[in-house]
């Protein structure tokens, strides 16, 4: 069986039967990103708020709630991966 490269689901930007509007949505995305702060060493961290699992509860975690403390933020490829 041929192995398929795992990707992720993304919308085409159009309704069914209409041509993809992906090009346009990509431009919009870039435009949006220009206005966003990005992470740089020596600069204040971009704040974020995200749904979370914390000690048996579904919660919301917000980076700026930890101002005054040291924080380690760790991104990783995915749950149930091998490393």
């Amino acid at each position, binding site marked *: 069986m041929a192995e398929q490269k795992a*990707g*992720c689901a993304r919308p085409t930007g159009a309704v069914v039967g209409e041509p993809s509007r992906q090009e346009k949505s990509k431009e919009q995305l870039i435009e949006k990103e220009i206005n966003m702060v*990005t992470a740089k060493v020596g600069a204040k961290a971009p704040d*974020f708020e995200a749904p979370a699992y914390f000690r048996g509860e*579904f919660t919301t975690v917000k980076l700026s709630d930890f101002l005054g403390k040291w924080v*380690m933020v*760790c991104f990783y490829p995915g749950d149930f*991966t091998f490393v």
Partner: protein
Amino acid sequence: MSAVAANYDKLQELGVEVISVSVDSQFVHKVWNDQELSKMAERDVPFHMASDGPGNVGKVYGVYDEAAGVELRGRFIIDPDGVIQAMEVMTPPVGRQLSETIRQVQAFQHVRATKGAEVCPAGWTPGKKVLKPGPALVGNVWKEWSPLKDH
């Protein structure tokens, strides 16, 4: 992440809060904790496991892989003022070394405690020689610190 969970007490001693982030939902995080991580770490995951489904957080941190739809291994040390003091970004197949993160936190905490009067040379761990930057040290680091003996 199991290594961070297993060694969480060391981070707590240093006053470090941990937030892990992946594109998985918080529900998958729960099942991963229950089914696997808690067995590996011999405890439940004690830190915040955040869900970044659309990769929006990963994008502003420069760690979101658009093609794969997942986040790279990115580790950020943020100080009490909210300033990023260190970052390390790796592709997925190689894991991190938590003791290096702990060493860096200890070094940054030392610098902060001395308000920058003392800095930590290469390979510094608590108890090792620090340097005091100033006019007298310029050109004289070689007298104070040796990469062969003090590293």
